[in-house]
């Protein structure tokens, strides 16, 4: 039910539309057509809506080239300096924050993906008691506001006297990523044909062979989508991080703290670079998916 899960579907390059194809009406069925308002109004609205959605992104990108001195508010001229010297500002604070975010994102993603994938397989493939309790436990972190998750963990670390550093951030991020991994991978496990695994067992594959040679490769697209989603969630998280980071800096936390005195243009550089990298990755996967679908259609 989550928007983020569908975001993961887009990231992973598969969407439910693949399975829904036949549910649609017959193509080319006779239809009376009147040239209605919707024929041009809706496309025009859509274009305007996308322009609106892109405005802050374009702003961030353009201002990464601003020849600013300290705060990056008014336009002073075009320069490549910010892109070429990203790590030279404030003793490399931007880059350090960025590196921390990447490390935290990677570690939290690996742990959350492993734990979440195991849960997803168990939920789809096995029957056990307490299923509804476990589903609730998985659903609740997604329905809890981040500020409550963050304050709760911080209260627990405080009560136990655990000092807040990078480890506590990783522990927090792993926690909120698990549920999203479970929903994403679960969709993939449900769509898996059990006959393939049965065939493997019939051919004398041991349980571990069947898992690693058949189940795991078939689950890979779902697992990759879940991992990308986890990384994106962790990388951009601010609220939970703010409660559990102590003095450790992350990229969003760096921006929050610098917001009162002005953000250096180098932060725009890092954000723009991350954006371009992600967009290229996603668009490439969409295009290759479309090409694959065309090839398969030809084979039919």
């Amino acid at each position, binding site marked *: *039910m*989550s*928007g983020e899960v*569908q*975001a993961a579907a*887009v990231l992973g390059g598969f969407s*439910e539309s693949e399975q*829904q194809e036949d549910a649609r*009406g017959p193509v080319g*069925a006779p239809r009376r057509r009147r040239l*209605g308002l*919707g024929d041009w109004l*809706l496309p025009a*609205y*859509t274009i305007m*809506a*996308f322009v609106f*959605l892109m405005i*802050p*992104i374009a*702003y*961030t990108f353009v201002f990464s080239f601003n020849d600013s001195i300290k705060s990056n508010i*008014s336009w002073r001229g075009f320069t490549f300096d910010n892109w070429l010297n990203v790590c030279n500002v404030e003793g490399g604070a931007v880059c350090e924050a960025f590196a921390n975010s990447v490390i935290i994102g990677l570690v939290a993603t690996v742990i959350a993906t492993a734990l*979440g994938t*195991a*849960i997803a*397989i168990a939920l789809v493939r096995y*029957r*056990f008691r307490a299923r509804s309790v*476990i589903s609730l*436990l998985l*659903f609740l972190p997604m*329905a*809890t*506001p*981040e*500020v*409550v*998750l963050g*304050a*709760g*963990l911080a*209260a*627990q670390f*405080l009560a136990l006297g655990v000092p807040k550093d990078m480890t506590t951030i990783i522990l927090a991020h792993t*926690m909120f990523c*698990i*549920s999203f991994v479970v929903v994403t991978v679960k969709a993939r496990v449900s769509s898996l044909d059990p006959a393939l695994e049965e065939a493997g067992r019939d051919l004398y594959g041991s349980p571990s062979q069947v898992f690693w040679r058949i189940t795991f490769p078939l689950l890979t697209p779902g697992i990759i989508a879940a991992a990308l989603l986890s990384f994106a969630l962790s990388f951009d998280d601010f*609220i939970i991080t703010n*409660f559990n980071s102590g003095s450790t800096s992350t*990229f*969003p936390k760096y921006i*929050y703290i610098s*917001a009162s005195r002005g953000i250096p243009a180098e932060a725009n550089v890092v954000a723009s670079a*991350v*954006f371009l990298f*992600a*967009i290229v990755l996603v*668009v490439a996967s969409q295009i290759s998916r*479309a090409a694959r679908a065309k090839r398969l259609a030809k084979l039919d």
Partner: protein
Amino acid sequence: MAFAAFATAEAQAEAPKRRSRIALFLLLPGILYLILFFLTPLISLLLTSLQAPAEFGDIGVYDYAFNWQNYVDVVQQYLPHIARSFGYALAATVFALLFSYPLAYFIGVKARRWPLLQSLMLVLVIAPFFISFLLRTLAWKQLLSDESFIITSLKALSLMAPDAHFTGTPFAVIFGLTYNFIPFMTLPLYTTLERLDTRYLEAGSDLYAGPFAVFRKITIPLSMPGIVAGTLLTFIPAAGDYVNASRDFLGGPDTQMMGNVIEANFLVLLNYPAAAALSIILMAAILVLVGIYVKRSGTEDLL
């Protein structure tokens, strides 16, 4: 024959036992993790919310107690913040729904014939996710500041009073919340509209229903699961957000929400019991509201 039946029965009896051990092995690490880092933190939040200041302690030192007075105190002190949280979140949810529905309808229904265009438009919908949430909000702050092109033009056209501001007002906070949660609204709407069988709409107009009646009586009810999912995914994070309302972003002194006072009490004032009590109130209120909403909209199976 009988022997064969016996053998399968035995195999079946054996299988679930072994299988449930595998299931336990798969479930245990993750579930244990969630118990340790999601469930017990909620309990420690509850315990913290009942703490009383230590008798001979410094600021920020508290003893475990059953000090229910904390709840009365925070409600009295922060009632405007509580009201703002839910009011702003509600307004942002309504605006996001109005903005997203036509967009999702175009991507999910009108663009069906062009799958590549459809998926590229979906990429555009989630594109804001790829740039930092805080930088997006700061970009709007600059774009809507008093000296900005947008605001000076509005003032020149007399659409805005010359001495009026946009940033720092409730409108700016609601605007920011709306913008930031639009993808959460659009994606679930798209998912249900993508599956909408357009033959129902044709049947409606064949039966002489006008476009508006078709939309109200067929399209809206069929897309209800997406509307419910989208409004929940927007409302819940918006109610707990404190970035948009923060003074350094789109808010001002009079726009502070629950998230802001939870942050201030926890990280600045070190008044942990107040922060914890506010968090518990926020979570309880959201669970109650979501429960009522889901029941009334008749989409319980969604959860």
